[in-house]
């Protein structure tokens, strides 16, 4: 049972480039979330999705785009990466409870 996976696990990109982080879950959970984790800030919600084709902004959505054409996938795109988007990104899912299950994270460095 794979659960929730993220790819790539590590990514280095240059300022201004577009980059997409992938998230896939095998549980058919309704809700999926994208967080970024930075020292001193804990986990901050970027975007979330209640179901396929339903997405909404979280606390820090600027500079990010999401889509959810299938229940199991929730990609996060940085349209024009900036150094301030250097962070560790976590995807999570839940099925109508408050207990979230997290992926292993993607460490993104923008140079």
């Amino acid at each position, binding site marked *: 049972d794979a659960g929730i996976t993220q790819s790539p696990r590590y990514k280095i990109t240059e300022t201004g480039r577009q980059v997409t982080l992938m998230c896939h879950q095998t549980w058919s959970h309704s*809700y999926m*979330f994208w*967080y970024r984790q930075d020292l*001193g*800030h*804990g*986990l*901050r*919600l970027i975007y*979330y999705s*209640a179901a396929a084709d339903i997405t*909404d902004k*979280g606390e820090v959505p600027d500079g990010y785009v999401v889509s959810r054409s299938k229940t199991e996938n929730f990609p996060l795109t940085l349209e024009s990466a900036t150094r301030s988007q250097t962070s560790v990104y*976590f995807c*999570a899912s*839940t099925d*109508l*409870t*408050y*207990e*979230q*299950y*997290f*992926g*292993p*994270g993607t460490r993104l460095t923008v140079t």
Partner: protein
Amino acid sequence: TQLLEQSPQFLSIQEGENLTVYCNSSSVFSSLQWYRQEPGEGPVLLVTVVTGGEVKKLKRLTFQFGDARKDSSLHITAAQPGDTGLYLCAGARTGYDYKLSFGAGTTVTVRA
């Protein structure tokens, strides 16, 4: 400004000692969760508390939800090196679409 304030930010203790981590807010939560995160991995849920005054025990870990449902604590008895990690509290509020608000975390190091 974080909705949930955790303290202390860092905690380093010797194996066998006890420790307590606090999670406080001015907001009322319908439930509160504690996660543990190890380096290079995602957070893993430890416990969910839903009733004011509730106490839950998980082996050497004791979790308490405040009577007013605004705060929580995590107490570890006789800490072991395997307890080392980042502890995060997260609160859920009714009507907020299953979103969680996370504290900044407490980094616990247990020295052998």
